[in-house]
């Protein structure tokens, strides 16, 4: 199948990924690994690295899509000797429906490590932390081995590859909370605190971990970096099918024939993903709607089934690319049940710091339960709409968790309006695919 074949030219990120047995240093180097780092340390200045990454139009793969090189450029230009700085990989990956970073750390941890070393050099960071989801036991094990190997091979530690550059890297398994994925919360977690998010400004690039300059990037983002430095900007821009650079790890979960992760040019169409990569819907199921990039993106209806999955197009359609891993809602599952499930997640994972999220989301969840179980009233729908309107816009809550929570609700209220109203009118629990029945089918 051409969409999954190993191809370092077209699918660099997954080229060496081997989930059964990830490449060791030798195998990684044989496959082209550490070329990027060698090039960097052989004579590039930190500023040149930042510039190259910026020009490659690599945008953050953690959900917000900020230009990575630009983010790095905000770090105060001080050398390693002048100030301690941190580079942090965000491998929290707790967003429901997202399972790409796991693949990268389990299948080729050295690629991530190389990306981090390059990034560290670019911002002159002295210390690196890989923040990994606590449940990723296999990933943790493999990362630890890879770090040791990289250290033994002289890619970590002091005077890396003979250059005047030291870098120490550790792995931190999370204590487990979705909010730890939010970059400032993640930093707070690394300080051994309750991981409530922090105000921006000051931005982490200026005052992050322990008040020191810190850059946080997603694991997939870092994994792109070695390839950019090894193969150049033009090559990287050429990988993409849109204005931004590179490939993207896309994914599908739900009632598709072959759910999974696929590396494709950034800007690939949803139709290609669903039909060609994932083999279309399972027999007897039709696509009703989907969340294009994780639980905190808004629903897109089936009419968008062939939407271009770049950064701009889903936004125009009222949603976001997010993590790029789509969750499918089929015609036999209850949309109200699905939203209820999502809001349960968001209410439970609220850090409890700010009011709209802490007290507003549980109310939303309770209303959804009420409606889902056939006790709802038209008033309840109105309350949900209030909540969507009042919590949804950015800036109402302390961090983006709550707006993320509202995205599927607000879009669902529009898209599945009839379902809501029918349920309320019927006064019976929601039918169709309650999940248990889903299995019976």
């Amino acid at each position: 199948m051409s969409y999954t074949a190993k191809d370092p030219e077209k699918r660099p990120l997954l080229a060496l990924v081997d989930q059964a047995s990830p490449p060791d240093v030798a195998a990684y180097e044989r496959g082209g690994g550490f070329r990027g780092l060698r090039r960097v340390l052989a004579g590039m200045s930190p500023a040149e690295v930042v510039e190259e990454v910026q020009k490659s139009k690599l945008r953050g793969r953690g959900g917000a899509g900020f230009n990575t090189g630009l983010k790095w450029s905000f770090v105060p230009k001080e050398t390693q000797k002048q100030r301690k700085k941190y580079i942090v990989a965000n491998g929290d990956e707790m967003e429901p429906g997202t399972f790409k970073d796991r693949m990268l750390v389990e299948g080729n941890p050295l690629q991530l490590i190389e990306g981090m070393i390059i990034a560290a050099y670019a911002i002159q960071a002295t210390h690196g932390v890989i923040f990994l989801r606590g449940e990723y036991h296999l990933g943790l094990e493999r990362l630890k081995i890879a770090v040791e190997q990289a250290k033994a091979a002289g890619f970590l530690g002091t005077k890396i590859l003979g250059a005047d550059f030291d870098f120490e890297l550790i792995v931190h398994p999370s204590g487990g909370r979705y909010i730890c994925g939010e970059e400032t919360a993640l930093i707070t977690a690394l300080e051994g605190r309750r991981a409530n998010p922090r105000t921006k400004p000051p931005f982490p690039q200026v005052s992050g971990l322990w008040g020191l300059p810190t850059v946080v990037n997603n694991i997939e983002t870092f994994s792109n970096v070695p390839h950019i430095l090894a193969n150049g900007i033009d090559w990287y821009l050429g990988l993409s099918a849109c204005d931004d650079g590179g490939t993207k790890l896309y994914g599908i979960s739900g009632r598709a024939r072959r759910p999974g992760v696929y590396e494709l040019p950034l800007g690939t169409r949803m139709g290609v993903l669903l039909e060609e990569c994932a083999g279309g819907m399972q027999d007897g199921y039709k696509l009703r709607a989907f969340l294009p990039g994780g639980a905190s993106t808004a629903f897109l209806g089936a009419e968008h089934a062939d939407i271009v999955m770049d950064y701009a197009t889903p936004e125009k359609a009222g949603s976001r690319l997010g993590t790029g891993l789509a969750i499918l809602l089929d015609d036999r599952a209850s949309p109200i049940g699905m939203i209820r499930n999502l809001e349960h997640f968001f209410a439970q994972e609220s850090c409890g710091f700010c009011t709209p999220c802490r007290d507003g989301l549980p109310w939303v969840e309770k209303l959804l339960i009420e409606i889902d179980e056939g006790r709802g009233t038209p008033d309840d729908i109105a309350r949900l709409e209030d909540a969507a309107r009042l919590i949804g816009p950015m800036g109402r809550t302390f961090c983006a968790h709550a707006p993320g929570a509202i995205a599927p609700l607000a879009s669902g209220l529009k898209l599945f309006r009839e379902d809501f109203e029918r349920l309320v009118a019927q006064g019976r629990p929601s039918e169709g695919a309650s999940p248990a029945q889903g299995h019976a089918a």
Partner: protein
Amino acid sequence: MPDVIDADLVETILDMAHHDVLPRGACIEAMKIVQDRYGWICDRHLKQIADLLGMSLADIDGVATYYNLIFRQPVGENVIMLCDSVSCWVMGTDGVREKLCRKLGVKMGQTTEDGKFTLLPIVCLGHCDHAPAMLINKEIYGPVRPEDIDGIIEAHREKTS
């Protein structure tokens, strides 16, 4: 469970503390390695970790109770975490849950009487392509069907008997 944390763990904790800007930076990992060995964090151990890291009990328990993966109550020999997030829901985690509860005779959040299993919900395990997903101790399962449960549970029961 010993009254005090084993010396080798204490050493690891102190070493981690030493490498952080403030010792407290090590507290989450400290609790996790202690939990790894003893199953959960009892009051005595919590106090000991707090002392090692120069934190107050209120402070460290505030951290402990913040995170999903730090247990402040005893758990069974096997901890089953069943994903209850959206992809698994679409794929039928509810049916698996019902089956699990019936099989073990417990509700979510409870431990079997024989102390063999604790059943907990967990948010998305990053295994959505193999939904419904389930984690038993450090082993991941998926897709899990209700009819697989008997076999999986019995296998674990044997392993730990």
